C-alpha cells in the first residue's frame, strides 16, 4: 500500500512502488489537473509541489513521494498560488491551457522561494516548462506582475 497526501488529503492506494506519481494522481486518485506531456521530465506539464519543491511527477515514483504533495487543484488555497493564478488571468496568459497548470506550479514554487526574482532567474527557472502555443512572454510578464506586487506590498 502506498500512502499519498495530496492537497492535505490522505490517499491509501494499492499500486506498485514504482508507478510514477503522475499516473497515480491522474488514473488512480482521479485528479486531472496534473497533465501528461512527455513522461521524461522534459516539458513540465506534470509539475506538482513535493514538500514545496517543484517536482516532475512523471518521473517521481510514488515510493519517493513522501510528504506533502500539492497539485494545481490546491493552488487556490495557497496565497502565492492564488496571486499567480490571478496574474495569469489578468494578462490572458493561456492559449490552449494544457501546460499552464504546470507553468503555474513551477512559477509559484519559484516565487515562494524568491518573492522578487531577477528576470534572468525567472527565465532560467521556467526553461524546463514547455508551451507549444508560445505564451512565454506573457508567462514572464505574469510572474513579474506578482513579483512587483510583492515588492510594493
Amino acid at each position: 500500500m502506498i500512502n499519498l497526501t495530496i492537497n492535505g488529503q490522505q490517499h491509501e492506494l494499492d499500486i506498485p512502488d514504482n508507478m510514477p506519481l503522475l499516473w497515480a494522481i491522474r488514473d488512480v486518485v482521479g485528479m486531472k489537473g496534473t497533465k501528461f506531456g512527455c513522461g521524461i521530465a522534459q516539458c513540465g506539464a506534470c509539475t506538482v509541489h513535493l514538500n514545496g519543491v517543484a517536482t516532475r511527477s512523471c518521473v517521481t515514483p510514488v515510493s519517493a513521494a513522501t510528504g506533502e504533495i500539492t497539485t494545481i487543484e490546491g493552488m487556490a488555497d495557497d496565497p502565492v498560488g492564488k496571486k499567480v493564478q490571478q496574474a495569469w488571468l489578468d494578462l490572458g496568459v493561456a492559449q490552449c491551457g494544457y501546460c499552464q497548470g504546470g507553468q503555474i506550479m513551477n512559477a509559484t514554487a519559484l516565487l515562494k522561494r524568491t518573492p522578487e526574482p531577477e528576470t534572468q532567474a525567472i527565465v532560467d527557472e521556467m526553461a524546463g516548462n514547455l508551451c507549444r502555443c508560445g505564451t512565454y512572454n506573457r508567462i514572464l510578464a505574469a510572474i513579474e506582475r506578482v513579483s512587483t506586487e510583492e515588492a510594493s506590498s
Partner: protein
Amino acid sequence: MSRFNDTLLLANVSRRGILKGMAAGSALLLAARWDLSWANEQAQFGAGAMPGGWVDDPNVFIHINTDGIVTFINNRAEMGQGIRTSLAMVAADELGADWEQVRAQQANADQEKYGNQNTDGSRSMRHWYDPIRRAAAAARMMLEQAAANQWGVPVHEVQAEVHKVVHPASGRELGFGELANAASEREVPNREALVLKPDSALRFIGKESGLINGDVKSAHPKAIDGEDIVTGKAVFGADVDLEGTLYAVIARPPVYGAKVKSVDDSDALNVTGVNRVLRIEGTDQPGAFNPLGGVAVVASNTWAAMEGRRALKIEWDLEAAGDNANYTTDAYRKALEEAAQSPGKVIRQSGDVDKALEEAATRVSATYYMPHMAQAPMEPPVAVVRITEGKAEAWAPIQNPRATREGIAAALGIDQENVTVHQTLLGGGFGRKSKPDFVTEAARVAQHFEGQPIKLQWSREDDIQHAYFHAVSVDHLDAGLDSGGNATSWRHRTLSPSITSLFAPDPEHKAEFELGMGFNTMPFNIPSIRLENPPAPAHVRIGWFRSVYNLPHAWAIQSFAHEMAVAAGKDHRDYVLELLGPDRQVHNLTVGDGWNYGEDPDLHPIDIARMRRVIERATDEAGWGRETSSGRGLGLAFHHSFVSYTAVVFDAEVSDEGEVTIHRADIAFDCGPQANPERIRSQMEGSVVMGIGVALQSEVTFKDGVAQQSNFDSYLIPRMPNAPKVLRVHLIDNPNDAMGGVGEPGFPPVAPALCNAIYAATGKRIRRLPVGNQLS
C-alpha cells in the same frame, strides 16, 4: 462536462414571419461596415462552400435561461486560439448580454445542425462572425418583440440594453431572463429584417483590451475557460473521467505501411494491471485518417499499459512498407536538390525566364531546405470511446468532429447516426488533431470491451514518431538582376511530397491548394516569372501543420528576396518594396490560383498595398536602419496567407559560440476587421515563438523509414530562453476589407525573418533548416 441547463428556451425554428414595420431593404445598412450580406455567403466561397455550410438560427446557438444565464453554443474546436471566448463575445455584443452571465457550451459533432465544424484553415472567425451576429441579432429582436407585446407598445419604442429590454417612454424594463419564455414563443425574424447594431453600439467587437505590448490599459472580458485553466479544472481529452475506464496504448509499426508479423505478449500480460493485448489492423496505403495498426495493450491505468507495451516482443513485417523502409531524409534531400536542377511541371509563367536569366548582369541562385516537423501539441493525441449495443460514444480533442464521426462509423461498420462525438478542449492542435486516426484507434479497441470506456493515450514518443509530418521541402530559386540591381527574372522550383498522398495514389506533385499557399501567389512584380513543381514522392504520412506549405514557400521566397537585395547592394526593405511594385490588387486567377483559401478573389484579392503597409509598420516600429553592435542585426520577412498579411522584423544577436539571442521581434498584422484584438495579439505572439523553433530547432529525420527523434530531448521546440526579450504586435487598423484568418498567417514569415537577421548579424546565410549548430 456540462455545467448548465441546456433547455432550449428559444424554441421556435420557424422563419415564416417578417416583423412588421421594418424596412427590409435597408436593414443591413445599419450593420457594422465589414459585415457581408448573407447573400455573399451563399456563393461558392467562404462559409457557404464548406461541407455543412453555415447556420444562423438563433435556436441553434443561443439559449437564454429564465435566470438570465445566456449560453452560447460553440461549434468550433477550441485549441488555444480563444474561439470559445471570441465567438461568444460576438454573440454577446450583438445580443446585448452582460458578459458575466454568458457561458459557452461545446457542440457535439453534427454538421447538419451546427454547420461546418472542421476547425482548420484559420476560418472560424471569418466564416462564423456574420452568421453568429445574425443569430444574436435575431434573438435580441425576439426579446424586444416579447417585451413590446407584454407592454402593449410598438416594438420600435423598445430597445435592448445590457441584459434587459427597456421602454424609455414609460421607464419600464424587463431582464433577458424574464423575457426568455415569451421570446421563445416569437418567430425568428427573416434575415432581411435583421438589424445589426451600429459600430457605435458595440462593447466588445473590435475593441482593444488586455495586455497590449507590455501594458494592461483595460481588462479583457474574462476568457470563457480562463478560470478553469488556471485552477486545473478545464477538461481536455485525457481528463474525461468515466466510470470503469480501461486505459490503452498501442505499439505501432516503426515504418509507415509495415505490419505486425508476430507478437509475443506473455511478458506484457504479466505486468501488474495489464488486462488484455489485442492486434489492431492497419489499413493499406494511402492510409488517410485510418489507424496505422499494431498491438494494443489494455490495462487498469495508463502506466501499466505503457509498461505492458514495453514488454511486448513484436516482429514487424517491413516488406509490407515497400519503399518506405528505405526512406532516409539525408538521401532524400540530396535527391530533391538534384531534381531541382531540372525543369518541372510549369505552374505559372510570364515572359521568357531562361532568356532573361542568360542576359542578366547578375544572377542569384539558391536552394533552401526545410525538414519534416511534428506538430507536437502539448496534449498528445488521446481519445475515450465507449461502445454499447452497436452505438459508439466518443470524447476527444479533435479539430474535425465530422471526420471523427465518419472514421468511427466506418471502422465499426455502423451508421453515423449511431456515433456521438463530444468535443473536449484541445491541448493544442496545430493540424495534428485534424486527423482523427487516434479516435478510430480507440474505437477499434473499444469494440472488444462492450459497454466499457477505453481511454487510448498516445505517448510523446508515439506523437513524434507517428505524426502526420509536415512535408520536407526543397525550393530552388534563380533570379536575374540588371546592372542597376533590378530584378528582371524569377524562377522558382518547389519540391515536396503532397498531403494528397494520404488519400489517393501519390500524385508526387503539389495540389492546387498547396501551390496556392504562397507559391503561385508570390506577389513580386517581375517581368519574367516561371514557377515549376518537379515531382517528390511521399514516404511517410504527410499532413497539415499550422500554415502548411506556406512555411517552406515563405521561408524560401523571403530568404531569397533578401539574397537578391544583398546582391543588388540595396537595403532589404527598400528592395522588397520595389519588388512588390505599385499598389494594386492582383486577382488570384491571374496568377493561376483558383483556390484562395476558399474565399472569393473579388473580396480577397492579393492586395499589394496591404502587403506594403505591414512591411512599413513592422520596419518602422523596429527602427529599421538603426545601427546595431557587432554580431547583431535586423532581419525582415513578410507573407500573405489565409487572406491576411504579416510582416516580421527580428533584432537578433549571434554569440561567438553560435548561440542566438533574440532581443526583439516586431510583428505587424493585417487581417482586415478584428473581432477580438486581444486574442489576435496572443496568436501573433505564439506564431513568433513557434516560428523561432522552426528556424532554430525543430526537425524530424528518418533513417530506413524510422523517425530518429522521439521526445522533447531530441525533437526540440522553443523554451522560454528562446523567446524574444521584447515581443511587439502591431495590428493594422483596417475595418474596410473583408475579414481574414488569424491562427496561421502570423507563422510563415517568422523563420525567414530570423534567418535574415542572422545573416545581418553574421554574414552567414542559412539555407537549411533548422539552424541547429550551423553557427558554431
